């Protein structure tokens, strides 16, 4: 059932995502020929172009140091580009239009769960009484309805991550950016959170950009996998994943899934070899 379309990577010119994998829904955000050089001289991203369509679930897959987190931060506006631009066809994002989930839960330890989730709305000037429903809804969405008064230290790693996701959702963002959110969790918790995130996405069709170094996670969750190569970070290949929704345990054990994983894994290895074969770069 699932069909694999691959767009051959062209690291020199960047991948023209808009032409090859255009979406009828239009793009929420587009990176155009973005390069990023850090002050220490490292070229973290080179000529990266990427389109994120409305309602798309895109994974950025790559080895560490391939600039996937840097790309995510640039989309979020947390870092400037050295060259190139980030376009927002629907208008510049306003406060709360972007939800961000970090690799660590990044909660304020001195504040309880409710206050942590309230934070984005609080910074927007919303009082506690006006946000009570929104915060409660966000917490119920991630399955933590009864934990509003708990402090982060009383929660398990998976639950902290859920709070972090609820905080990102509370502003009803136009795009949800997730930077390896489940990488630090044990496998059982990670599978559970993958399932829950997927069900939420199937219900709400948010636009999600999900950074990961796990082939399995990217195949299970996303509709499109952007494979990145390292040093300098760039898009190596894009795979589209048409496996139908809802996906669940059945998909995880299906042949389609295995096939997609192999493809993604091959693409990842090709991207890594590309770097290793470069002259003068030690393998």
């Amino acid at each position, binding site marked *: 059932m699932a069909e694999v379309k691959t767009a051959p990577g062209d690291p020199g010119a960047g991948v023209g995502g808009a032409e090859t994998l255009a979406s009828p829904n239009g793009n929420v955000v587009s990176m155009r020929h973005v390069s990023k050089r850090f002050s220490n001289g490292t070229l973290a991203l080179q000529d990266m172009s990427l389109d994120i369509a409305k309602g798309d679930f895109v994974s950025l897959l790559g080895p560490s140091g391939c600039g996937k987190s840097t790309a995510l931060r640039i989309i979020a506006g947390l870092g400037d580009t050295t060259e190139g631009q980030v376009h927002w066809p629907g208008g510049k994002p306003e406060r709360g239009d972007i939800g961000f989930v970090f690799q660590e839960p990044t909660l304020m330890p001195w504040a309880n769960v409710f206050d942590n989730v309230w934070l*984005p709305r609080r910074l927007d000037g919303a009082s506690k009484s006006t946000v009570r429903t929104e915060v409660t809804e966000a917490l119920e969405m991630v399955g933590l309805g009864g934990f509003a008064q708990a402090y982060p230290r009383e929660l398990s790693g998976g639950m902290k991550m859920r709070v972090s996701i609820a905080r990102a959702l509370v502003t009803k963002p136009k795009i949800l950016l997730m930077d390896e959110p489940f990488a630090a969790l044990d496998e059982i918790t990670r599978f559970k959170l993958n399932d829950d995130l997927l069900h939420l996405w199937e219900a709400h069709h948010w636009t999600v950009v999900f950074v990961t170094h796990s082939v399995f996670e990217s195949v299970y969750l996303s509709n499109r996998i952007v494979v990145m190569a390292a040093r300098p970070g760039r898009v190596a290949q894009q795979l589209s994943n048409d496996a139908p929704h809802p996906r669940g345990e059945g998909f995880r054990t299906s042949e389609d899934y295995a096939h997609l994983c192999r493809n993604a894994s091959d693409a990842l290895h090709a991207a890594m070899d590309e770097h290793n074969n470069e002259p003068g770069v030690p393998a």
Partner: protein
Amino acid sequence: MNVSPSDPAGGAATQRGETLSSDAGKAGNMTSALEETALKSGPDLRAAAERRDRLLRIILPVIILSTAILGWEVLVRAKEIPHYILPAPSLIMETLVKDWAVLATSLITTLQITFAALAVAVVGGVGLAVLFTQSKWVEISFFPFAVILQVTPIIAIAPLILIYVDSIPVALLICAWIVAFFPILSNTTLGLNSADHNLRNLFQLYGASRWQTLWHLQLPAAMPYFLGGLKIAGGLALIGAIVAEFAAGSAGRGAGLAYRILESGYRLNIPRMFAALLLISVTGILIFLTFSLLSHLMLRKWHESAIKREN
């Protein structure tokens, strides 16, 4: 998203599980006849051991301290040491009661200076730390002054300050403030800069103003550091006040506890000298305990330092 029953209860259930299984493990080592009673009394035994531990924690230091004081008393009596060389503890207590009117007045004077200096140190230290974190140029420009104030021995500048400042209480206040201010400044500055960088990014993402970042992120993050500084500064403010009183007292003015010590020294009233010393020590201990309690109350909900963990 739905949480599986194991997820939310995960932490607590695991801990409970460990406790139970270790109890069972202990019981398992005993013979089968004893097994049932052992299972029942396991938690009781543990609670008893904890109670004993808590009790010993208090009793042991008390016993050691009492023995030392008793030894002192016995030594003074046995060797008939004159009270102008070493007064017995009983005589010191007697003097404390007898001279309470004089000593209490002095104590209040010293306490006033100490707490006024500490209050100014808190306001100034935190205020300056906030300024420092708002602009690195302010920090670079003014930090050397703070260091100079800190490293110059207070006993060396106290006479100068007493010359320049007409009012004795104000001069004493300045001396105590100089000593108490630095730990608060340096700890709070460190704390304000210690806020998690991802949280900073989050605040940036949601367009937080400087004021919002300071109020909702940096100040709470700095609280444990500030409270640590306050614990040090409390004791230092008392020391600063006493030292300044000594400097002022040598000029023949002032009525704090340090002045009582000097005066008693001149008059060879050694018991009163010891009584005043005792008051200073007790005050210092009380200040430390008060701030430790304050720190515990403010951090117990979230900070690692105030959380009791079992392994």
